């Protein structure tokens, strides 16, 4: 397939003597979500944080392509990287405190992302924030409340609204429902699924949870000790895992 939006090649991150991730490569096209599954410490979040620009990789390349224009993510300076994170690459973190300023309002968090992208007209910013909060099903009468007063599920919804505010090309989701109560998590998961379907965005979903991966992705890579040990169709991984570690992972999930 030559229709990639994101291409990661040989992505490697060492923390001193510790291997974060090692020689990880994959493509993701617009309108599809790639799952990365593995236990904690497998390196899956390291991959995501390198792509997000939160940490610098030791080796490797990642390119992002929109029509004829290609950007090498790891060759940007700090200000270019910040600009990219405003309009092109969005991250939804497990902990909403990483993606939001909890002291300011839901509307304010979204307005911040919009103004960073050049929005100036107050009325239009309000209208766009309202539209986004409505889309993620946050009650509009809470729009001006500080996010710190919101429940975990609602905070995650605000983080999603902020992440999609400028129609990103790439959406990175790091354990987006981990830590939420089961019923709250399933509501947030439904929301993410429908957003992925309507946005035509390229997405990478990192999770240790097979339920999350199987609901959101059709393709998956399994990471273990920093390396991709298996890749395949998501239902194939669950029905016929090939690698020794994948077989253990699936057997454990089945209980």
């Amino acid at each position, binding site marked *: 397939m030559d229709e990639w939006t994101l291409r990661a090649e040989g992505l490697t991150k060492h923390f001193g003597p510790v291997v974060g991730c090692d020689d990880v490569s994959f493509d993701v096209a617009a309108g599809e979500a790639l799952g990365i599954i593995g236990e904690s410490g497998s390196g899956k979040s390291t991959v995501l944080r390198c792509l997000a620009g939160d940490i610098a990789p030791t080796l490797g390349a990642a390119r992002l392509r929109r029509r004829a224009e290609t950007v090498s993510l790891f060759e940007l300076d700090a200000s270019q990287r910040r600009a990219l994170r405003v309009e092109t690459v969005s991250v939804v973190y497990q902990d909403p405190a990483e993606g939001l300023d909890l002291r300011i309002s839901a509307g304010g968090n979204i307005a911040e992302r919009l103004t960073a992208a050049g929005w100036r007209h107050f009325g239009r910013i309000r209208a766009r924030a309202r539209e986004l909060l409505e889309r993620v099903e946050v009650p509009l009468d809470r729009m001006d409340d500080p996010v710190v007063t919101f429940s975990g599920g609602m905070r995650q919804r605000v983080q999603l609204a902020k992440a999609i505010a400028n129609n990103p090309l790439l959406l990175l989701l790091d354990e987006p429902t981990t830590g939420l109560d089961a019923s709250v998590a399933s509501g947030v998961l439904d929301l993410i699924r429908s957003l992925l379907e309507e946005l035509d965005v390229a997405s990478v979903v990192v999770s240790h949870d097979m339920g999350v991966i199987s609901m959101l992705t059709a393709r998956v890579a399994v990471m273990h000790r920093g390396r991709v040990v298996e890749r395949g169709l998501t239902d194939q991984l669950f029905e016929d895992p090939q690698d020794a570690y994948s*077989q253990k992972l699936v057997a454990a999930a089945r209980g």
Partner: protein
Amino acid sequence: MTTSPHPVLTVSALEKRFYLHAIDREVDALRGIDLTIRPGEHVALVGASGAGKSTLLKCIWRSYVPSAGHVLLRRPDSSVVDLASASEQVMIDVRQRDLGYVSQFLRPEQRRSVLDVVQRAARRRGVSDGDALDEASAALTRVGLERKLWATSPVVLSGGEQQRVNLAAGTLAPPGLLLLDEPIAALDAQNRESVLGLIAELVDSGTAVLSVFHDLGAVRALATRVVVLDGGSIVAEGDPAVIVPSELAS
């Protein structure tokens, strides 16, 4: 009925082995399978449980990874793709457009309405947004699922109702090849008859079917050819009336 000379599916020298790392053991599931299916043919797989019938369907659907051999699928544009080695992206595209799979073990997508599940399947097969609702309604009516259930999530439905949602989604805007694994297992007599009628109609209009039915009466009534599996190999092949004695099919 179409008389296309080209097979829609050509399986050759297909092998499937499972290697279980935890106990360092290899299990042979399919050996040297050769099989050809043309448009408008309904090939039924029969054999004892464990013979490899479902495994063969899953190797074609690629929820199992074939160990060796080829699974050639001819697509509507006449291109041929080897499902045994196709990339995941190509497989996803093939599954959406050209291949259907209905299994008694497959649960419909949860937390969506029945109508939504079936409409999505229609759109993936290229039905326009404007026609998807009509096509989905017609498909659900055909499998006899009451309209009052269409707005509910499949999770609250009985096994037989879920089965019919899968059948509606799997058979509308029919793909070139339909894989059926016990599609009537959970159905009552009346629904069983209407589903068998639906499968017969699809085959008449040119869809190729590869099926597994526990019910030998259904095999005798519907199949144009029977393939007998034993221990992962094809041991006999032929006319259903000859292979499935009528006393077994009652």
